Protein backbone atom coordinates (compact mmCIF):
# COMPACT_ATOMS: atom_id res chain seq x y z
CA UNK A 1 0.00 0.00 0.00
CA UNK A 2 1.37 3.38 -0.98
CA UNK A 3 -0.17 6.70 -0.18
CA UNK A 4 1.08 10.20 -0.46
CA UNK A 5 0.43 13.38 1.33
CA UNK A 6 1.41 16.81 0.16
CA UNK A 7 2.20 19.21 2.96
CA UNK A 8 1.84 22.76 1.85
CA UNK A 9 4.40 25.12 3.27
CA UNK A 10 5.84 28.30 1.84
CA UNK A 11 9.20 26.82 1.07
CA UNK A 12 8.87 23.14 1.39
CA UNK A 13 6.76 20.51 -0.16
CA UNK A 14 6.90 17.11 1.38
CA UNK A 15 6.03 13.84 -0.15
CA UNK A 16 5.31 11.14 2.33
CA UNK A 17 5.06 7.59 1.20
CA UNK A 18 4.19 4.64 3.29
CA UNK A 19 5.37 1.19 2.53
CA UNK A 20 4.47 -1.46 5.02
CA UNK A 21 6.91 -3.95 3.48
CA UNK A 22 9.78 -1.89 4.83
CA UNK A 23 8.73 -2.35 8.40
CA UNK A 24 11.93 -2.81 10.31
CA UNK A 25 12.41 -4.66 13.55
CA UNK A 26 13.06 -2.29 16.38
CA UNK A 27 11.89 0.76 14.47
CA UNK A 28 8.97 0.99 16.87
CA UNK A 29 6.70 2.07 14.06
CA UNK A 30 4.51 0.23 11.59
CA UNK A 31 4.89 2.97 9.06
CA UNK A 32 8.04 3.89 7.30
CA UNK A 33 8.02 7.23 5.64
CA UNK A 34 10.07 8.70 2.87
CA UNK A 35 10.16 12.35 2.08
CA UNK A 36 11.60 14.91 -0.19
CA UNK A 37 12.12 18.42 0.98
CA UNK A 38 13.78 21.28 -0.78
CA UNK A 39 15.37 22.93 2.23
CA UNK A 40 15.56 20.25 4.84
CA UNK A 41 17.02 17.20 3.26
CA UNK A 42 18.06 15.72 6.62
CA UNK A 43 14.88 16.32 8.54
CA UNK A 44 13.42 13.09 9.79
CA UNK A 45 9.76 12.43 9.26
CA UNK A 46 8.79 9.25 10.96
CA UNK A 47 5.82 9.90 13.19
CA UNK A 48 2.57 11.87 13.08
CA UNK A 49 3.84 14.70 15.28
CA UNK A 50 6.52 15.47 12.68
CA UNK A 51 3.73 16.90 10.54
CA UNK A 52 3.01 19.27 13.42
CA UNK A 53 6.70 20.16 13.60
CA UNK A 54 6.54 21.38 9.99
CA UNK A 55 3.72 23.71 11.02
CA UNK A 56 5.79 25.57 13.65
CA UNK A 57 5.55 29.29 12.98
CA UNK A 58 2.57 28.73 10.68
CA UNK A 59 -1.16 29.14 11.17
CA UNK A 60 -2.86 25.91 12.15
CA UNK A 61 -6.46 24.82 12.53
CA UNK A 62 -7.32 22.77 15.60
CA UNK A 63 -10.45 20.87 16.54
CA UNK A 64 -11.06 20.49 20.26
CA UNK A 65 -13.46 18.55 22.42
CA UNK A 66 -16.61 20.42 23.42
CA UNK A 67 -17.48 21.58 19.87
CA UNK A 68 -14.62 24.08 19.78
CA UNK A 69 -12.27 25.01 16.98
CA UNK A 70 -9.18 27.17 17.27
CA UNK A 71 -7.04 28.81 14.62
CA UNK A 72 -3.68 30.35 15.52
CA UNK A 73 0.04 30.54 14.81
CA UNK A 74 1.78 27.52 16.35
CA UNK A 75 4.82 28.24 18.52
CA UNK A 76 5.22 25.11 20.64
CA UNK A 77 3.81 21.65 21.20
CA UNK A 78 4.74 18.51 23.10
CA UNK A 79 3.94 14.81 23.01
CA UNK A 80 0.63 15.38 24.87
CA UNK A 81 -0.34 17.85 22.10
CA UNK A 82 -0.22 20.70 24.57
CA UNK A 83 0.05 23.74 22.31
CA UNK A 84 1.13 27.37 22.48
CA UNK A 85 -0.54 29.58 19.86
CA UNK A 86 -0.69 33.30 19.08
CA UNK A 87 -3.20 35.44 17.14
CA UNK A 88 -5.86 32.97 18.13
CA UNK A 89 -9.47 32.86 17.10
CA UNK A 90 -11.61 30.40 19.00
CA UNK A 91 -15.06 29.35 17.77
CA UNK A 92 -17.58 27.52 19.95
CA UNK A 93 -20.34 25.82 17.99
CA UNK A 94 -23.61 25.83 19.92
CA UNK A 95 -27.02 24.39 19.12
CA UNK A 96 -29.62 25.88 21.46
CA UNK A 97 -32.73 23.86 22.17
CA UNK A 98 -36.08 25.56 22.72
CA UNK A 99 -38.38 24.67 25.62
CA UNK A 100 -40.35 22.27 23.45
CA UNK A 101 -37.19 20.47 22.39
CA UNK A 102 -36.75 22.04 18.95
CA UNK A 103 -33.13 22.57 17.87
CA UNK A 104 -32.35 26.18 16.96
CA UNK A 105 -30.01 26.96 14.05
CA UNK A 106 -26.30 26.55 14.76
CA UNK A 107 -24.81 29.50 16.60
CA UNK A 108 -21.08 30.22 16.65
CA UNK A 109 -19.45 32.20 19.50
CA UNK A 110 -16.08 33.67 18.49
CA UNK A 111 -13.30 35.08 20.65
CA UNK A 112 -9.86 36.49 19.87
CA UNK A 113 -6.87 35.89 22.12
CA UNK A 114 -3.34 37.16 21.58
CA UNK A 115 -1.44 34.26 23.20
CA UNK A 116 -2.93 30.98 24.34
CA UNK A 117 -1.86 27.68 25.87
CA UNK A 118 -4.17 24.81 24.92
CA UNK A 119 -4.09 21.69 27.08
CA UNK A 120 -3.44 18.62 24.95
CA UNK A 121 -6.17 16.40 26.41
CA UNK A 122 -8.81 18.45 24.56
CA UNK A 123 -7.15 18.24 21.16
CA UNK A 124 -8.86 16.11 18.49
CA UNK A 125 -6.90 17.16 15.39
CA UNK A 126 -4.30 19.63 14.17
CA UNK A 127 -4.23 20.68 10.53
CA UNK A 128 -1.86 22.98 8.63
CA UNK A 129 -4.15 25.72 7.42
CA UNK A 130 -4.08 26.85 3.81
CA UNK A 131 -4.44 30.60 3.70
Amino acid at each position, binding site marked *: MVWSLIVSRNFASVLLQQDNRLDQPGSGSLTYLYFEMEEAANASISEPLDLVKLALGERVFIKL*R*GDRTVSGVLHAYDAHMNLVLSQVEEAVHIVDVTEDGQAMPLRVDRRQMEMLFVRG*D*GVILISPQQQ
Partner: protein
Amino acid sequence: MSAVESYVDQTVQVILYDGRVIVGKLKGFDVRTNLILADSVEREYSMDAGVEMIPLGLYMIKGDNVALVAEVDNEKDSTINYEELRAEPLPEIRH
Protein backbone atom coordinates in the same frame (compact mmCIF):
# COMPACT_ATOMS: atom_id res chain seq x y z
CA MET B 1 2.21 19.79 44.51
CA SER B 2 4.25 21.55 47.16
CA ALA B 3 2.11 24.54 46.19
CA VAL B 4 -0.56 23.12 48.52
CA GLU B 5 1.90 22.90 51.43
CA SER B 6 1.17 26.47 52.51
CA TYR B 7 -2.55 25.60 52.84
CA VAL B 8 -1.98 23.01 55.59
CA ASP B 9 -3.95 23.92 58.75
CA GLN B 10 -5.71 26.67 56.79
CA THR B 11 -9.37 26.73 55.79
CA VAL B 12 -9.60 25.70 52.16
CA GLN B 13 -12.39 25.53 49.62
CA VAL B 14 -12.16 22.50 47.36
CA ILE B 15 -14.03 22.38 44.05
CA LEU B 16 -14.64 18.85 42.84
CA TYR B 17 -14.97 17.50 39.29
CA ASP B 18 -18.74 17.15 39.72
CA GLY B 19 -19.05 20.82 40.74
CA ARG B 20 -19.48 20.28 44.49
CA VAL B 21 -17.87 22.80 46.83
CA ILE B 22 -16.42 21.58 50.12
CA VAL B 23 -14.87 23.83 52.75
CA GLY B 24 -12.73 22.50 55.59
CA LYS B 25 -9.39 22.63 57.33
CA LEU B 26 -6.63 21.01 55.27
CA LYS B 27 -4.83 18.44 57.42
CA GLY B 28 -2.83 16.63 54.77
CA PHE B 29 -2.19 16.03 51.08
CA ASP B 30 0.06 14.07 48.73
CA VAL B 31 1.41 14.34 45.16
CA ARG B 32 -1.84 12.95 43.72
CA THR B 33 -3.79 15.80 45.33
CA ASN B 34 -5.42 13.37 47.75
CA LEU B 35 -6.61 15.65 50.55
CA ILE B 36 -7.57 15.27 54.19
CA LEU B 37 -10.13 17.83 55.33
CA ALA B 38 -11.22 18.25 58.94
CA ASP B 39 -14.56 19.76 60.02
CA SER B 40 -15.58 19.92 56.40
CA VAL B 41 -18.86 21.38 55.18
CA GLU B 42 -20.39 21.09 51.74
CA ARG B 43 -21.74 24.37 50.39
CA GLU B 44 -24.68 23.63 48.15
CA TYR B 45 -25.50 26.57 45.85
CA SER B 46 -28.91 26.95 44.29
CA MET B 47 -31.10 29.62 42.69
CA ASP B 48 -34.14 28.71 44.80
CA ALA B 49 -32.64 29.17 48.25
CA GLY B 50 -29.56 30.44 50.03
CA VAL B 51 -26.40 28.36 50.25
CA GLU B 52 -27.09 25.17 52.18
CA MET B 53 -24.31 24.20 54.57
CA ILE B 54 -24.09 20.42 54.94
CA PRO B 55 -21.70 19.22 57.65
CA LEU B 56 -19.50 16.32 56.49
CA GLY B 57 -16.84 16.10 59.21
CA LEU B 58 -13.49 14.43 58.52
CA TYR B 59 -13.04 13.59 54.84
CA MET B 60 -10.35 12.09 52.67
CA ILE B 61 -10.92 13.28 49.11
CA LYS B 62 -9.32 11.25 46.35
CA GLY B 63 -7.14 13.46 44.15
CA ASP B 64 -8.82 12.38 40.90
CA ASN B 65 -11.94 14.29 41.97
CA VAL B 66 -10.20 17.52 42.88
CA ALA B 67 -10.38 20.37 40.38
CA LEU B 68 -9.25 23.29 42.52
CA VAL B 69 -8.09 24.08 46.06
CA ALA B 70 -8.39 27.67 47.28
CA GLU B 71 -7.37 29.29 50.55
CA VAL B 72 -10.36 30.86 52.29
CA ASP B 73 -9.98 34.33 53.77
CA ASN B 74 -11.92 33.66 56.98
CA GLU B 75 -12.42 37.34 57.68
CA LYS B 76 -13.91 38.00 54.26
CA ASP B 77 -15.88 34.77 54.37
CA SER B 78 -17.57 35.81 57.65
CA THR B 79 -18.85 39.02 56.01
CA ILE B 80 -20.75 37.12 53.31
CA ASN B 81 -24.40 36.41 53.98
CA TYR B 82 -24.64 32.91 52.58
CA GLU B 83 -28.27 32.56 53.63
CA GLU B 84 -29.22 35.20 51.07
CA LEU B 85 -26.68 34.27 48.38
CA ARG B 86 -28.20 32.65 45.32
CA ALA B 87 -26.14 31.19 42.52
CA GLU B 88 -26.24 28.39 40.00
CA PRO B 89 -24.30 25.34 41.18
CA LEU B 90 -20.95 25.03 39.40
CA PRO B 91 -21.08 22.83 36.31
CA GLU B 92 -19.17 19.57 36.32
CA ILE B 93 -15.79 19.34 34.60
CA ARG B 94 -16.46 18.05 31.08
CA HIS B 95 -13.95 16.19 28.88
